[in-house]
């Protein structure tokens, strides 16, 4: 509703001026140069993504041909040492457990990071006194500047010892409950899906908080004041003026965070335990993600089809990330339109 009105307004007021600038643009070589340059940079990005997909497919093709395109998605057993150049079934490179690991760690990360990020963004935009808004805001942004290998280190040497008592309590209580106990069973050795999810939560917090902050900030002043005018408390104002408007923005921000969580490699590799053979059901047991198995194994992938299978993992990871990003974009766009 808004964009057409604005565009129409500009045309109505600046009609003649626009026409003049159009004719000038044709004459000036600088304009043409700039236009072409921008088009080329945009084109390069498209070509890069296309080339990357083609590259992954081409590199993974021998393995896909040998085992079948979808056979990687129907097995949860990764055992390169059992692969033989002449044997096609069973596929020694099942990747379901990596998809599971990537999804599980990302979900744990999101469950923790999204509420936290929304809270942080609300504090920054609505609640904190002006004096500490800015420093708080830059501190959260600073979290994004910490290299992921440092998060991994921190996870091993600070986070794991800190959460051990809590997790030990959970495994001895929740872990003994029938049915759901399997998902919370011990023993807990520190590195696990859960630890990786925690580290991811802190890593994706800044991007979600930053986008939410901007979304909350865009709430029109009129509506805030209208809420206060009808006697709303600050919390009620947030509930009736800020949050409803921001819903799609929050979803979009979360999906951007999810995009980062899906591909995060080094920090996760350091704290997930790298158990690649199959799915371990407890969230407190060791596992692996799609990116961690690539990081761990590509240097010495010497078994038959081993390297090619890692490219297949990379291919599906890229597809997963593209789908998430496209969804995020669609939701944000719909949000703007509404």
């Amino acid at each position, binding site marked *: 509703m808004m964009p057409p009105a604005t565009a129409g307004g500009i045309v109505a007021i600046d009609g003649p001026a626009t026409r003049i600038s159009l004719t000038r643009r044709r004459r000036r070589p600088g304009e043409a140069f700039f236009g072409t340059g921008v088009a080329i940079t945009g084109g390069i990005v498209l070509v890069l993504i296309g080339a990357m997909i083609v590259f992954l497919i081409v590199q993974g093709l021998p393995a896909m041909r040998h085992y079948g395109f979808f056979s990687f998605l129907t097995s949860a057993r990764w055992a390169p040492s059992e692969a033989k150049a002449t044997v096609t079934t069973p596929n020694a490179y099942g990747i379901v457990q990596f998809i599971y690991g990537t999804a599980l760690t990302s979900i744990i990360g999101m469950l923790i990071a999204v509420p936290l990020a929304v809270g942080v963004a609300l504090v920054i935009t609505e609640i904190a006194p002006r004096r500490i808004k800015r420093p708080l805001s830059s501190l959260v942004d600073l979290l994004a500047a910490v290299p992921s290998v440092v998060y991994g280190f921190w996870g*091993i040497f600070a986070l794991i010892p800190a959460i051990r008592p809590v997790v030990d309590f959970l495994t001895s209580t929740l872990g003994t409950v029938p049915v759901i106990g399997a998902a919370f069973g011990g023993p807990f050795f520190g590195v696990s899906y859960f630890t990786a999810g925690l580290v991811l939560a802190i890593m994706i917090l800044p991007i979600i908080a930053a986008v939410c902050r901007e979304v909350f900030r865009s709430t029109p002043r009129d509506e805030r004041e209208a809420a206060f005018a009808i006697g709303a408390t600050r919390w009620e104002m947030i509930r009736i003026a800020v949050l409803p408007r921001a819903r799609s923005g929050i979803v979009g921000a979360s999906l951007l965070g999810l995009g980062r969580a899906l591909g995060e490699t080094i920090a996760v590799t350091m704290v997930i335990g790298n158990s690649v053979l199959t799915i371990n059901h407890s969230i407190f047991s*060791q596992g692996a993600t799609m990116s961690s198995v690539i990081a*761990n194994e590509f240097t010495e992938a010497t078994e038959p089809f081993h390297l090619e299978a890692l490219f297949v993992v990379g291919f599906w990871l890229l597809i997963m990330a593209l789908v998430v990003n496209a969804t995020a974009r669609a939701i944000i766009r719909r949000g703007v339109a509404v």
Partner: protein
Amino acid sequence: MARTSTALRGALTAVGGSLILAACGGSGTATTSAPSATPAPVCRGTTAPPGYNNGVATVPGQASSLSGAGSTFVAPMMSVWTSAYATTSSVQVAYQSIGSGAGIAQLQATTVDFGDSDAFMTDADIAKGKGPVVQIPLVQAPVVVAYNLPGVASGLKFSGETLGKIIAGQISSWNDPAIVSLNPGVTLPNLPIAVAHRSDGSGTTFIFTDFLTKESPSWVTALGGPSTSVGKTVAWPTGIGGKGNEGVSAAIGQTQGGIGYVELAYAISQHLTYANVKNKAGSFIQPCVQTAAAATVGITTYPSDLRVDVVDASHNAQAYPITGLTWALLYQNQTDATKAAALVNFFSWVLTKGQDLATSVSYTPLGAELQRLCVGQLRKVTLNGSPVVS
């Protein structure tokens, strides 16, 4: 140079000594116990450098630089060699520590002058390259079984079969009767065992799984047979994967109840406690420079290409069984005269003077018989068909 290496060795002994003292002090309470507070007699003191001087005559006209890539297992040793060699010969040797498998791949692609692997190249590996390969063992080193048990010092005893069951996940608690019966008098806690292993492909893994395959039928069965129970990667049934020797040592150090395998130098530098392992003669042997040296004593027949598996091969009473070799890999027929000369000169130095530096970083010099055969390998190197060494 000799003075430096002596100093280094002295420092290392001091570190080892204080480590043992610390362990002894820590286990002085009534409820805990140290299996062996002092090193085995064979591991005490320092070993004399072998002083080999049977290298080949220096080939003139050598290149001023060489590039190599491969094993991370040998990387600490290689960095000592390359820096010492640069000062004595003014030849720069750049070694990339990227893993044995990657080293073989780089040699096959001829992007390096030499490769290095802890598992020798098979015929299939060689067929993927550009011609016959000369494989030269460079140094011996033990892979140690390190663990993290509060109140238990170095020297816990393991047999190959017990280790195999632990690593396969069939023994999951530290007070399992199988471990207790091997260690009378040691109070073992009721802790779950956290197995740590390499997550990347590794020559260290090859040496360790080679030992398990030879000594533990349970391990072989659990891994589905002797062809899949040994390798640079195996299908680990359980445990925590760590990247590199440092990743595994961190996992062990951070986890109470942890057990895993690392190269000796890493265990020493990370202050890990480590086990005595039962050898073929039935004795439980502490890993050290001396017992790793004993691991090739008594092996008298080597194949002419030196593709020999020394893991758990010696019947010597003092041999530490999980001792492996690392091989330098170079094309038998070289096409660049200066590179060929530099390669032969460098490895001739490594096999003679270089061996004296091994103990400074906890590696073990080659035994005399094996060293003589290794020097012989250098004479096989040719330049466009004619021998480089006259």
